[in-house]
């Protein structure tokens, strides 16, 4: 970790002491979006598989956790691991189906699978309570620490975000990560070298759904309410846009992208009535000015500046 990372972390840790409650809550939501985007980036950036159905894992884990606690009366110590496990199992199945194709076919299969899950969320009223969603949920109290306070919850999310980003960094920098990038850039060559391209992609898909499920848990704890719209294609698309805008295939890309999207949606919208148009313009501007995304674009710019000074 670089010094700038520690500095950022220190600022974030101190945030609840100097920022108002609204900003603390907004920051929690941004971090949850960061985890979600980072999990999608494993597929989009490192495996080269553009998924348009990642909201499935966010929503499934949120719904499973909510359903187990409301209908089964189970505590968070059981619902959280159960939600993660079951969601990841669904990821195993969906990955097996979706990876029968790549490119646009993969995108469509992930979209179709997520639309099916979304449809179930709407229509399977006995379980999901349909369009009314599930409410009356609580936040967990790990080690007896009450997370109902916005500051405490922010720290909780911050710890998990840090761990998740660290694990993802280890994952992509491991030998497995190098092979994964190999399958993205040279899938035929990797195949002829004896690598199991399909298996490598599948493992990544399952891992991405697991991290997505973590984001789902944090999401439902934050909102204490869950509605089928969380599994809609809009949510998947927003995360995909965040990853690409930030710079897919970089560790910092999804962080920057998710923060940008959340700020446009939840903060700028208070000042700009036409925030949808603003968001569109920002995306188009990014893609024209920095076709690989913000983070790679800024890196190139910085290098050029440094080169100019020498």
């Amino acid at each position: 970790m670089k010094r700038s990372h520690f500095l950022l972390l220190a600022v974030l840790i101190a945030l609840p002491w100097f920022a108002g409650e609204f900003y603390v809550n907004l920051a929690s939501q941004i971090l949850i979006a960061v985890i979600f985007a980072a999990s999608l980036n494993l597929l989009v950036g490192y495996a080269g598989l553009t998924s348009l159905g990642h909201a499935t894992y966010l929503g499934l884990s949120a719904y499973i956790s909510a359903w187990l606690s409301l209908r089964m009366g189970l505590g968070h110590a059981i619902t959280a691991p159960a939600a993660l496990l079951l969601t990841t199992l669904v990821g195993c199945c969906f990955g097996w189906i979706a990876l029968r194709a790549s490119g646009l076919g993969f995108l469509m299969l992930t979209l179709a699978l997520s639309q099916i899950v979304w449809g179930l969320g709407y229509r399977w009223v006995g379980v999901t309570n349909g369009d009314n969603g599930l409410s009356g949920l609580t936040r967990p109290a790990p080690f007896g620490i009450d997370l109902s306070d916005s500051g405490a919850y922010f720290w909780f999310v911050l710890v998990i975000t840090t761990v998740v980003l660290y694990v993802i960094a280890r994952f992509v920098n491991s030998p497995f990560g190098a092979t994964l990038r190999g399958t993205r850039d040279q899938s035929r060559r990797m195949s002829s070298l004896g690598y199991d391209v399909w298996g490598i992609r599948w493992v990544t898909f399952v891992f991405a759904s697991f991290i997505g499920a973590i984001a789902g848990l944090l999401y439902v704890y934050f909102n204490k309410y869950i509605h089928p719209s969380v599994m809609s294609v809009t949510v998947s698309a927003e995360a995909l846009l965040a990853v690409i805008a930030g710079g897919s295939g970089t560790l910092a890309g999804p962080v920057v992208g998710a923060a940008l999207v959340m700020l446009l949606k939840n903060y700028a919208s208070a000042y700009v009535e036409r925030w949808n148009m603003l968001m569109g313009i920002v995306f188009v501007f990014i893609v024209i000015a920095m076709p690989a995304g913000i983070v790679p674009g800024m890196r190139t710019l910085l290098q050029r500046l440094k080169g100019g000074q020498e």
Partner: protein
Amino acid sequence: MQFWQIQTLNSFALGGLLFLLSSGFALIFGLMRIANLTHGALFMLGAYAAVSAMRAGFGLALAAVIAALSVAVVGGLIERLVLRRLSGNAQGQVLATLGLSFIASDFCLIVWGGDTIPIQTPAMFQAPLRFMGLIFPTYRLVVVGIAVVVGMVLYLLMERTRLGAMIRAGVDDMQMARAVGIRASALFTTVFCLGALLAGLGGAVGGPIFSAYPGLDSDMLSLALIVVILGGIGSLVGTFVASFIIGFIYTFGTALLPDLAYVILFLPMVIVIAFRPTGLFGTIRT
């Protein structure tokens, strides 16, 4: 009411609309390998453009021509100003086309407001058709006719004209096409305009059935994607057949299996793609 006969006609009518919607998307994707996610927005622009043209006093036929041409111009601008810079950058294309569709839908909201705006069916097609005890909206049959005519024109364009030959060469192998002297740049712009033109035409022709409303873009985009994927990339015939297959699946599926209404379109697609990744008629792996 004669359930089966009417639903069969309904399926054809929906199929015809889906073909008008999807053919442009298929054309662009087949040649340029760009998944044009603004396609739904272009369709919506077509519907709203028809609204304005009809308010200015034109009939639906002329309004549809105006809508198609103006959307074609928008499409050309998008290709020249944005997508041109992003060739080969599939993720950049996703970002750009989705960003553009955000802009387009908010633009429509500003200009035409949030209300659903009906588009009048031409007077001569307003009375329902009565035939052997069946009653069916005349205009829907007209839509099927338009879809068939558009399909035939596209087929002749592809098979019998120089432009069609160039497109087919490009679809098969772009590098080879360049090598034999086809100007890819002009060809891409032409095809993108043509695809947008079809979307705009579809929006206007579908207007009397769907009306123009905020959200039409995303409703239509997912339908277009389903049809094109099911039919197979690069296959106009596939798109045509898939449009009608989806028309039948949706119409009968929602009527006979209402509990599956939300998954009825996606389940068959998952099954087809999972077992036949090229789609029903495609030759190119997606």
